[in-house]
């Protein structure tokens, strides 16, 4: 398994209940770790505060998408129906924001949705098909009914033995070491 070239990725701690991992997350946050994460089969209410995460900035991507969509819609209709080829139909004005609104509204929603989706992918760095976590067989339960904390070796406070002791004794978890090659 661990050849000379493989370097440690971090320590993986396994928990059985939502309450256990919730408390452990608070301890990790208070211990001052920065490069660590909690892995759960579903989002646990209050975990963001327990981990000390900032509010998700996905909304900015949504806003940019929506803003672009609305003005693209309005500009497109103005350009096509009033500027490039004016054509009177049914005696109606060549352009008003009123008849342009339904289409611009739909464009707002369409591009907001794309902004939200790709903003989320960007922030989460997905897709990411290689992950040292996937090499651990136990970790497969993280999408079923187990809860994990991984403290990465790149964390400035990480020390293999000290962190292992912290996880087993303070957080009462079964701990294994992860490697990447």
């Amino acid at each position, binding site marked *: 398994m661990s050849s000379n070239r493989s370097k440690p990725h971090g320590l993986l701690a396994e928990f059985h209940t939502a309450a256990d991992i919730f408390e452990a997350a608070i301890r990790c946050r208070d211990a001052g770790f920065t490069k660590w994460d909690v892995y759960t089969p579903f*989002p646990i209410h209050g975990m963001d505060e327990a981990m000390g995460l900032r509010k998700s900035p996905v909304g900015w991507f949504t806003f940019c998408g929506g803003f672009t969509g609305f003005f693209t819609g309005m500009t497109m209709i103005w350009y096509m129906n009033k500027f490039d080829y004016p054509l009177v139909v049914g005696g109606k004005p060549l352009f008003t924001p009123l008849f342009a609104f339904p289409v611009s509204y*739909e464009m707002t929603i369409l591009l907001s949705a794309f902004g939200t989706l790709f903003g989320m992918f960007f922030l989460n760095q997905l897709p990411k098909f290689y992950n040292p976590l996937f090499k651990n067989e136990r970790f497969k339960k993280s999408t079923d009914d187990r809860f994990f904390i991984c403290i990465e070796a790149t964390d400035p406070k990480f020390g293999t033995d000290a962190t292992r002791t912290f996880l087993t004794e303070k957080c009462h978890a079964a701990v294994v070491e992860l490697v990447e090659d």
Partner: protein
Amino acid sequence: MASPGKSAAVKAPEPPAELVREPLVLNNRSLGWITDAIAGVCEKPMPAWWWPAFIVSVGGMITMFSLIAYLVSTGVGVWGLNQPADWAWDITNFVFWIGIGHAGTLISAVLFLLRQKWRTSVNRAAEAMTIFAVACAGIFPVFHTGRVWFALLPGYLFPAPNANEIWPQFRSPLLWDVFAVSTYGTVSLLFWYVGLIPDLATLRDRSKGLLRRFFYGLFSLGWTGSNRHWSNYEKAYLLLAGLSTPLVLSVHSIVSFDFAVSVVPGWHTTIFPPYFVAGAIFSGFGMVLTLLIPLRSLFKLEDVITLRHVELMCKVLLATGSIVGYAYGMEFFIAWYGGSPYELYAFKNRAFGPYWWSYWAMISCNVISPHFFWFKKLRTSVVFVWIVSIFVNIGMWFERFVIIVTSLHRDYLPSSWGYFTPSWVDVMTFVGSFGLFMTLFLLFIRFLPVIAISEVKGVTPQADPHHPLGGAKGHH
């Protein structure tokens, strides 16, 4: 082992017994049971009925596509359309299918914003239904143009100039509809996919076969369940729900503009947008019940899709059915009160003209049948609910037929009155569209989790770190 400081568990007072809600997952099932029960549906071989059902559905789908080929190669005359009814079954089917989709978005988005946690058991299948219904809906307006290559080529539907350099004209609600429906289809698909990512990861981690592992792995994008990811994911999900809510209201409003913006008596009414939206949700919940009642018993998912879910959906049917009934009455009142003889005639003609049978079929299915659901006994009898849901589907198809055909066949000029009769191609194309819908739905059951696994887990008491079942030790 409770320790002082921030890690001390919060102790909440016990609520009085009558305020304790029924659990959403019955029999105190564990998280692992939920994974096994739902993922098991698409991992085990399909039960014996699946293949016959699939073959019949594919047959219907092939029928529809063959008849569309016949229509494109011959002309729209193969449908029963002729002056004065140039819209009939085609647009009826379009509005029927797009309306069905609306319940999926209502469940996934509106109920999410309203924090109705029971939605988690039904939203995945309802969203799938939405996407497949929109796919069926899109076929009819595209092919009713006859020379479909003109519709699909630049200048008609797509915002690009035609051969004479003329752009599509955006004063027409028909073009608004193109944008509304295509946005609706796209956003519904994105929303559905975002919801699927964690569950695809679950399937990836459970699958043994190479192909399954590859495809679930590919589409789950390397999801790990990291809380840093969940944080962005949940925000994105909330935003998509917030975007889908005004979207779903706008789509059927714009569909109703196709009629309301015209000057045809019976169409030119301001009540159309809210009336269409309520009708769409009514018909969609009818279809959700039609699909989910057999699904829950065939796959033994009664602990996840419980009787309470069925009952709540019946209440939605009752509420929206009452709105629809009110709208029917109000239309008649305004036709009289508005003082336009043409408008009044259109409505008299609906109820007592040559299409009286379609009007009364609509009234009996949509106005009478939901009112059975005032009674708890009937709301909790699944067989009865299923039968009523079929009537709702039938009634809502007739509603669109009544609106479209009875208004068109007799308008201002009696010399140009007519009577529309469908051709066999009309009928079989519509029947075939159910084949397409069911083919897609059966494939969905075969390959994807029919219930949102991670969302259902999230509403169980085990998921709550402050609940004793979630492992909380605050109760000294």
